[in-house]
């Protein structure tokens, strides 16, 4: 899933850094705040939701557009993600059209004509 998301994001013109769990993602963001984070829910060490809550408390932590990209597809998870400060939510399975349209929605890219 990380590979697929990475390929799609790179096709849209983004440089990508990968982190295998929430803690590593948090450390990565502290060093260099990215423009966007694609985030899984279930990760070892620190979950996606915990990561998001901690990220938003960081200085400049409101800058990245955070998009969940996960198998959890019920309204409770969607609502919790939004409450924690997620900008968008992608339920698996997804295709590049869905990722692209979510990137447009959060303003990371312009609609392709």
């Amino acid at each position, binding site marked *: 899933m990380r590979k697929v998301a990475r390929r799609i994001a790179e096709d849209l013109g983004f440089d990508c850094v990968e982190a295998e769990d929430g803690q590593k993602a948090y450390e990565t963001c502290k060093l260099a705040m990215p423009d966007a984070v694609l985030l899984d829910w279930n990760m070892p060490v620190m979950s996606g939701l915990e990561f998001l809550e901690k990220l938003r408390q960081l200085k400049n932590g409101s800058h990245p557009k955070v998009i969940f990209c996960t198998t959890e597809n019920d*309204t409770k998870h*969607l609502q919790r993600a*939004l409450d924690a400060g997620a900008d968008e939510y*992608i339920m698996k399975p997804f295709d590049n059209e869905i990722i692209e*349209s979510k990137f447009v929605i959060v303003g990371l890219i312009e609609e392709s004509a």
Partner: protein
Amino acid sequence: MRITDFDIYQHLLKEKSGLVLVQDQSYLLDSRLMPIAKKWGFSSLDAMTAVLHGVPDKDLVYDVVEAMTTKDTSFFRDTWPFHMFRDEILTMLKKVRGSQKKIKIWCAAAATGQEPYSLGLMFKERGADFAGWKLDILSTDISVEALEQSKIGIYSQFEVQRGLPVRLLLKHFKQVDDINWQISSDLRKMVRHQTFNLLDNMSALGKFDMIVCRNVLGEFDAPLRKKTLEKLGNQLEKDGFLFLGNGEKPENDAFRPLHEKRGVWVLQDSPHRSASDVPQALAKGAV
């Protein structure tokens, strides 16, 4: 598909729906027509094609045309027209329809309904601005099947993720099972459904404050495009708005652009002025 076989489908589609098929779309035909051949019990596509060369059952012809015309659509397709509707068009309509408090929209060739519902969602976003107002959307399509889906308002997880912000999904849809979501009855009540072929007489549909006919006319040939635009113009109120697809132009003196890039047009004598008209007028005054 053989050229001669392609010809018969091309002819059928042109005659029944006005759409012009080009040869490089023949791959589409195979994938769309196979399910129809199966449904009608033909052993192969060739067997069905042979029957179509003769005097076919009109229900078979309908199924074939429906399969070939089904439009690919998504929520908020191209984004901008819908934002423009929410931020500008609704504001203009509010000024001129204050006495009726009713806005009538026609979505032509709206297929499975993402377009009319996107307009409904934008209307809802204006909230208290339009308290007591009624948005009445007529959604038409040639396909009975597509309109049925639209009427029920159930969309797959794939469909609700294409173009639809998750915030609006949570607010206006209910999850019906693991992979399907249904739009709220509030939104469903805004949209009326009717099968309609754009080749037919439109006058019985009445007049509209806004007509949305996106990504259809481009598939007609020039004479039919012209004729259809004339007919659409007759169904539009004098101060109404016509939404066309990206890059589609009316090629018709009856319309002038309100915002060409976003595909929004008005009748020549409409009182509405585009933002770009204003600086031009000022420039003229300065000279």
